[in-house]
């Protein structure tokens, strides 16, 4: 039982990271129909920027306090997302290029980001200091690393914020309107270009936070992006692309399936790597809309 409770904490923490990646896809996908595979590398960039600010990696004797690192990661990634949208996506959308064009261009962006990180920091992993230290933390019957609880708390805060944005603010309603019908939204006076730019900036900031949050557990390294990108869209497909809650649910289901499978199923540990892919294929075939269906268009 104790074992199971500990597993619950660690699975919830991983699930939160997957959920943030899924959320990053979703924020861009809803208004633009573009699936941005580059967000994995943006998470890695977030991790490196964070580690750079927190330790003396980028600047001698910098080691800034954690909130400063969070702020810098959000701003830097937001700017990067905005710049990528301006430089690669907007010209294509303006030209009326098919929707696969920006998706392929973003694959090019993915490689540019990853290889630039490799050139800047080399192939060695960089340890990232956890903000709450290393002591084992117990909250009621649940026990785990402080970072795991920290991940869960920050993720829930981000999801609450994004949910509030989509459901309660004018800008969020504008996003939804664009997702439902681009042309009608434009006719209603919604600035499509601004919505797209904001979507990329916000998506990049969320991905960067996911990278920063997971870095104390895995350390920052140049190969961390692609697995996160794959886990993210698996979570997205499980939960459904229509709703913010879907991303959270999908991430948690994926992480629990992964960790419970690895712990209790009698199969070789290497084969548990096949779990998410099998789950992804199953969901694509049986329930391509995901578990939570998009809201009915009224």
């Amino acid at each position, binding site marked *: 039982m104790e074992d199971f409770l500990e597993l619950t904490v660690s699975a919830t923490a991983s699930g939160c990271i997957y959920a943030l990646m899924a959320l990053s896809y979703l924020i861009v996908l809803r208004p633009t129909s573009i*699936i941005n595979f580059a967000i994995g590398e943006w998470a890695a960039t977030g991790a490196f920027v964070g580690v750079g600010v927190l330790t003396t990696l980028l600047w001698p004797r910098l080691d800034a306090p954690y909130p400063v690192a969070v702020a810098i990661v959000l701003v830097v990634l937001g700017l990067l997302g905005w710049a990528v949208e301006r430089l690669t996506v907007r010209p294509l959308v303006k030209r009326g*290029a098919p929707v696969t064009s920006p998706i392929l261009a973003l*694959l090019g962006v993915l490689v540019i980001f990853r290889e*630039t990180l490799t050139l800047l920091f080399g192939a060695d992993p960089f340890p990232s200091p956890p903000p709450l230290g290393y002591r084992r933390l117990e909250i009621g019957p649940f026990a785990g690393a402080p970072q795991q609880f920290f991940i869960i708390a920050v993720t829930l805060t981000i999801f609450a914020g994004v949910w509030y944005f989509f459901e309660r603010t004018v800008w969020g309603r504008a996003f939804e309107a664009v997702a439902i019908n681009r042309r009608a939204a434009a006719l209603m006076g919604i600035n499509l270009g601004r919505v797209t730019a904001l979507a990329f900036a916000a998506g990049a900031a969320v991905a960067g936070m996911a990278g920063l949050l997971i870095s104390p557990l895995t350390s920052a390294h140049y190969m961390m992006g692609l697995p996160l990108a794959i886990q993210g869209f698996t979570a997205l497909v499980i939960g459904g692309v229509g709703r913010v809650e879907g991303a959270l649910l999908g991430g948690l289901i994926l992480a629990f399936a992964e960790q419970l499978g690895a712990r209790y199923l009698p199969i070789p540990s290497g084969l548990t*790597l*096949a779990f998410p*892919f099998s789950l*992804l294929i199953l969901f694509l075939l049986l329930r391509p809309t995901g578990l939570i269906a998009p809201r009915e268009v009224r």
Partner: protein
Amino acid sequence: MIRTFIWIAAIIAASAIAFVLGGYATDVYRKMLIWIALALSYNFLFGTAGQVAFSHFAFAGVGAYGVVILSTKLGLPFGIAFIGAMALCALIAFIVAVPSTRLEGFYLALATLAFAQLFTVLINEGGDLTGGTGGIAGYSLPSIFGLQLRGPWYTVVLVLLVAGTLLLLNRLDNSSFGRACRAIRENPAVAAAMGINVRRTKVITFTLTSTLAGLAGIAYAYTDNVINPPVFGLENVFLLLFMIIVGGMGRPLGAVVGAILLYLAPFFLEPIVGHGYLVIFGILVVLAILYQPAGLAGLIDRGLGLLRPRSQS
């Protein structure tokens, strides 16, 4: 008639090169031919038919692992192992294609990416059968009808592989099937309204091109006489995709030019910029999509157009 002559002359010229190259250059030349064969079939799938699939190298892997396992681990005669590996490719491709071609747009990309990753996990964890992370080595191409294909003659086989793939896909491209594929790429709903069976066309295209990838994989298995998992992973699929985008989507000429350029470029770039050549590839891809969607093939067309006298316009 003249076309046939040009074809034969090109095949002879490409084969003749094999007999003058040294050991290292032969290796480079052979891999380049395999990249070209893969780029040609991928171009038909992705460029002409518009299916963004990430499974092409996985099918090359099915072919390579299939033929080696059937012939060395199960001891089947090479001819039967060869046919068996091809049949396995076609069968798996068909099984993947039937449900996944039903998926719209990038969902096909996700499904094929999951399949490709699943394949990598399986060959890594296959134990004795697949040799795990180390792969399989220490086998060689048996003699076929008493003929031992080795040295430059094996390179000739690879030239014929490229020529055969090119001929088959060119013929398909110019047939009503090729036009159906393009129509589906541009607008599936309109294509269906014109009486094209969209599902069937998509499934046939996916199965055929993936089986061609398997054939190239079989050819690869006997170039180094070593196969291991990383070759058939995602990294190479990205490179293949980039070759088509830079070369020119939907054009066999583009696939050939793109494959040659991106395969050879690292040999020149690596001494200068080290690993940074991948950044250059990424920038090239973004620039190609933004400013030259017709790729290098489009540039070549424009160059030839300038040379030609402007009699007809």
